[in-house]
Every structure is written in structure tokens, then in C-alpha cells.
């Protein structure tokens, strides 16, 4: 008898989601889908608003990494006011970078410690009652404290640069609205410990070592789980370095061949198309020259480390070399290695933050530049979860007339569906009974890509799941809830 498994909700944030898995008569998986069930309509309702509102409006897409939307919109609006990405004042660009790398720091810490660590520390089949961040707090107070303080450090940097920890106002078209005073700067450099940048960098490096150790002890899981080949897309700096704030688009295929290089992102419409499928509100982007079926790609920490040539800070570069050597220099296509890549980026963000804090340009006073107004702007950044596209057109009255957003999670839509499908086929398919541990493995797959989907909630713990089994006629056969 054919059945359908429903896992809902998979999320409560920008993409409310659910998973459906359809089984045939022998309990073999016929089809699995990750549905994004929420629709907001930003593209339409920002029309008519003055362009300078975009950076503060659009960040309200997501309270987990609002800085990314804030900056992508600001970069687009820089062009509207006639300023190129390399034309900002040094103070403005460095303040934005400090904000962005602070964001990367807090978000990566949150994603790993609050979200992924419970699965790794307690195991996929552990009692759900302890397999969450409270379980960590109760069993390993030291780790829980580090998790809280790493995130706090990043959030405090955002407060100092954007004026607020969540939904700040720092970036404005053509620049920034404040610099960083010595008084604001010094606590980040000097503490009191442990909330000083050197301790933070050390803790980030400890986290990378923790993961490497875990990997050595759990190779089958880390290497095999939801591993599948894909293309990888990211921004890279002109010289091929990892850069979260600015660069050109580059993509490699699963074997490492460059299929896209040094593309000015303002030309993204030539490269990227989006497909709509009836069963999800989230679109499916693809590289146009490869077509809808073959053009999908991964974004995020794994993709970035697959695409870049090197990391421009020494301690992260050293870790990057180990990471690269593990796959013999070829792209890494293992979904759970996303966590490894993420922690290397956490370390890199810490090093960049330290270098920026020591830069006297942050205390200078040229904050905003203006040029000749233009009707269109495209802004990209590497958000914590991957490449983020913002594209706006503005009419003669300075009102937004068109907005197109491709968020990181959307770029990872197809890979997340593939990861869910991998679990369905390798863990659930053909089994007579569905266990809680199997359901958790569906989450683990999604969680590697995006806490916004695996539940930002995950910030606080784990998402509730219910699985229902229906027969082909739609009658409920069995229900499991946790």
C-alpha cells in the first residue's frame, strides 16, 4: 500500500518548512520533498518605498543574520547613489566588514554550538530530552558557556557597528552612519577576558580541533552521510582569497573544474535563473548555461572553501590546508563537512576581526560618499549560509520599482532536497518501522545547510516533529510525535 510520511514543521523562521516522503507498496521511497510553506511577498511590497529604506526594511526577512540582508541591500543602494563597491571611504568599508565578520562570527558559533553540537555530542539516536542545547548546558557547562560567549562577542560587535544587535541601521547608501571610537573598540581588544578577541580566536581554533577529533573518531558518519556531488558557487576576492563581503562570482563543478570565473555579480542575470515548482514557495536557482536539471549548486561554508584558492589569515589558512588535503585538493562534497568548513570560517572571522580592530581607519571620519545617481543596483555578499543576491530598480522619484532577492537558503534549495532524499533512500527506505532516530537524521541533513530551515528554533534546541503515515487513499495509518 502506498504511503506518505509528513514531517512538520521543519522550521518556524523565514522558511517554514515540512518534509514529505512518499513510499511505495514495499516501503521503498518513491519521492521526497522539502517544502517551504511560507510566503511573504517582499518583492512586491517594498515597491513604492524610498530606496534608502531598503537596508532596514529587507533585513527583516531574517532575524538570524539580518546584517547580511542589511549589507547586500546597502551595496545595491551604493550603486543607486553612484558609488562602486571599491569606491566607499576606507572607514565605511571597514566598518561594514567589521559588522559583517562579527555577524559571521555569531552566526557560525550559534549554528555549530547550539545546533550541530548536540547531535555530535550525544549522537543521532540519543534521548531527544537531552539532545539539545539545554542538555549541553546540564552536562558540559564549559562548552555551553563558550557557546553563549562566542555568540555574545559577535553580537556585541554588531551592536558597536550597527547600533543594535538585531535589525541595526549602520549601513546607508554610499557608506556608514558611524565610526568606531577608541572607547567602543578597546573592550573587544582587551577584554576583560574571556570576552577579548585573542580568547575568542583561541576558542574558535579549539572548536576546529574538536571537530577534527570528532571526525577522526566518526569517519563513516562524517564522510558518508548525505554526501553527493554538486557544483559549488561563491564570491571570491580578485586574487582568489576567501572573502565574505565582496568579490567576483566563481563556480567549480564536483571535480573542481572552474565552470564560472571572475564574473562581475552585477551581471548575475546572465548567469542565474530560477525555476518555480508547485510544491514549494521557495524557488530553485540554477546556472543558466547548464540548464535547470544540471545547473543547481551548493552555497555556504563548504562551497566557499571549495571555490576559493586560499584563506588570507594564517591560522585559518593552516586549517584550510588540512581541509583541502583531506580530499586531495578536489572539492569536498560531504554534507557534514559543512560543519568543519564553518568552524574554519569562524576562526578566519576572528582573525579578520582582530586585524580590523587594530586598523586606525575605523576612527576616521569620512563616512559617506556620493556619485551620479543610477536607476539600478545589484548587491551581493557571502552570508553565513551562502551567497545572497539583492537587486533593485528605482524610479525617477527615488522609489523602488523592482526588487529581486535570492537568499542563501534559496540557493541551497536543491541541495537540501537532495540531502533529505539521501536520508529517505538510505535510512528510511524499505524499513518496516520509522523510528525517532530516523527522523532526526532528516533534520541532521537539513541542519548541515541551514539553521534557518532546520529551525532557527534550533538556536534554542530542537524542532518538534510529527510523522504521519497515510495510505494511498489518505487514511491515517500511524502517527508518531515527539
Amino acid at each position: 500500500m502506498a504511503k506518505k510520511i509528513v514531517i512538520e514543521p521543519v522550521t518556524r523562521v523565514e522558511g517554514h518548512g515540512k518534509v514529505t516522503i512518499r513510499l511505495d507498496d514495499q516501503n521503498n521511497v518513491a519521492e521526497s520533498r522539502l517544502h517551504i510553506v511560507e510566503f511573504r511577498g517582499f518583492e512586491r511590497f517594498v515597491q513604492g518605498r524610498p530606496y534608502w529604506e531598503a537596508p532596514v526594511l529587507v533585513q527583516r526577512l531574517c532575524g538570524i543574520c539580518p546584517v547580511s540582508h542589511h549589507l547586500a541591500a546597502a551595496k545595491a543602494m551604493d550603486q543607486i547613489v553612484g558609488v562602486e563597491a571599491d569606491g566607499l571611504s576606507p572607514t565605511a568599508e571597514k566598518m561594514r566588514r567589521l559588522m559583517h565578520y562579527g555577524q559571521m562570527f555569531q552566526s557560525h558559533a550559534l549554528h555549530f554550538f547550539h545546533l550541530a553540537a548536540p547531535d555530535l555530542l550525544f549522537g543521532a539516536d540519543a534521548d531527544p530530552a537531552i539532545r539539545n542545547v539545554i542538555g549541553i548546558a546540564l552536562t558540559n557547562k564549559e562548552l555551553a558557556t563558550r557557546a553563549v560567549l562566542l555568540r555574545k562577542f559577535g553580537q556585541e560587535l554588531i551592536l558597536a557597528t550597527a547600533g543594535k544587535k538585531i535589525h541595526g541601521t549602520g549601513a546607508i547608501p554610499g557608506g556608514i552612519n558611524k565610526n568606531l571610537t577608541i572607547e567602543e573598540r578597546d573592550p573587544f581588544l582587551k577584554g576583560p577576558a574571556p570576552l577579548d578577541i585573542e580568547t575568542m580566536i583561541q576558542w574558535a581554533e579549539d572548536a576546529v580541533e574538536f571537530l577534527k577529533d570528532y571526525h577522526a573518531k566518526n569517519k563513516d558518519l562524517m564522510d558518508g552521510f548525505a554526501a553527493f556531488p554538486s557544483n559549488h558557487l561563491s564570491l571570491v576576492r580578485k586574487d582568489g582569497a576567501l572573502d565574505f563581503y565582496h568579490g567576483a562570482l566563481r563556480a567549480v563543478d564536483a571535480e573542481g573544474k572552474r565552470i564560472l570565473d571572475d564574473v562581475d555579480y552585477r551581471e548575475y542575470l546572465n548567469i542565474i535563473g530560477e525555476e518555480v515548482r508547485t510544491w514549494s514557495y521557495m524557488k530553485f536557482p540554477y546556472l543558466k548555461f547548464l540548464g535547470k536539471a544540471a545547473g543547481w549548486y551548493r552555497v555556504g561554508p563548504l562551497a566557499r572553501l571549495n571555490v576559493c584558492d586560499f584563506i588570507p589569515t594564517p591560522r585559518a589558512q593552516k586549517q584550510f590546508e588540512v581541509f583541502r588535503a583531506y580530499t586531495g585538493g578536489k572539492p569536498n562534497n560531504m554534507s557534514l563537512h559543512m560543519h568543519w568548513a564553518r568552524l574554519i570560517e569562524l576562526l578566519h572571522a576572528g582573525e579578520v576581526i582582530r586585524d580590523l580592530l587594530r586598523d586606525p581607519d575605523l576612527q576616521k571620519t569620512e563616512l559617506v560618499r556620493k556619485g551620479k545617481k543610477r536607476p539600478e543596483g545589484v548587491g551581493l555578499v557571502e552570508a553565513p549560509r551562502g551567497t545572497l543576491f539583492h537587486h533593485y530598480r528605482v524610479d525617477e522619484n527615488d522609489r523602488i520599482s523592482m526588487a529581486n532577492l535570492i537568499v542563501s537558503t534559496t540557493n541551497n534549495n536543491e541541495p537540501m532536497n537532495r540531502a533529505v532524499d539521501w536520508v529517505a533512500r538510505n535510512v528510511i527506505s524499505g524499513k518496516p518501522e520509522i523510528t525517532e532516530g530516523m527522523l532526526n537524521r532528516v533534520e541532521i541533513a537539513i541542519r548541515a545547510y541551514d539553521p534557518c530551515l532546520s529551525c532557527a528554533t534550533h538556536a534554542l534546541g530542537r524542532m518538534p516533529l510529527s510523522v504521519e503515515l497515510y495510505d494511498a487513499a489518505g487514511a491515517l495509518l500511524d502517527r508518531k510525535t515527539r
Partner: protein
Amino acid sequence: MSKPVIATASLAGCFGCHMSFLDIDERILPLIDLVEFNKSPIDDIKKFTKPVDVGIIEGGCCNSENVEVLREFRKHCKVLISLGECAIMGGLPAMRNGIPVRECLEEAYFNGPTIDPAGPKVMPGDEDLPIILDKVYPLHEVVKIDAYLPGCPPSADLIWKALTSLLEGKPLELTYNLLKFD
């Protein structure tokens, strides 16, 4: 005496209010000792298992599922709090309220510059997708709400102070710095 029971949910919000809750930072550790969490993203309780003292909800109602979750919360919570602008007045998502839903959908799925103009026009619509409401509704238009904590998001200090005041049974003193959020 048993610990006070708390439940939380995020409806049509951005999760920023929950993130601001997390911004209480080190105070999270003692909070775990002070209260018990029931239905919430913090644990695995999907259905309410006991009466809840304080329910905290972020986000307004933009689809049928949001309304169902909200009614469940009202049924089980003694005190229900609207946390943040979206819960209180629909917030930023309510900017679509003056626009027909169809226009919003067509802009996203038919007219976007990354949509292939030569391809077939596809609109999401599936038994597995919930129904979008005509407008985004604030929570108090759907159920009775007992308290409102303003902000986009409300600051961590406001959330902390409101919670501790409730737990201690004291009136909440709202000073200017707790209410000024932008």
C-alpha cells in the same frame, strides 16, 4: 513548589525576537534552573502536556497554520504575550496588507527577472502548502492577548525584565531605555 511553565512560538516573524531572547546571554544558564519549558522550540514537546503559565509569541498570522498554533496557545496559556512588532501589529510583513495577495505572488513567481519569460508560468499551489491569508493579522485580532512587549525586536533586557517581573509577581516597570528600540 513546581517551577513556572513557559511556552514560546514563532509565527509570521523573522525569528529576531527569539534571537533577542537569546541575547540575554549568560542569564540563559540560571533561567534554565528557574523555569520549565513546555511546548517550545527549546524542547521536543509538540503538544501541550500541562497548563502553561506564560506563553510568548513572536510574529503575526499570515497563513492558516499560524492561526491554529495561536489558538492552541490561547487554550493552554494563563498569560499570553505578544512579543515584538509583528505580533503586536503585523509588523513589516503587514506591508503587504494594502496589496492583493495575487499581485505579491505574481511578482515573485511570474515577473521576477530571474524567472525564464519563455518558460511555463508556474505558481506554487499544492496539498502540502498551507493557505495564505488575505492579510497579515496581529495576534490580538485573533485571540485575547494579555501583555505586549514592543520592539523590533524587543531588547534582551526588556524580555528578561518582563519575564522576571512575571515570575516574581511584580508589576513591570517600563523605563525609557527599555522601550526605545530604534
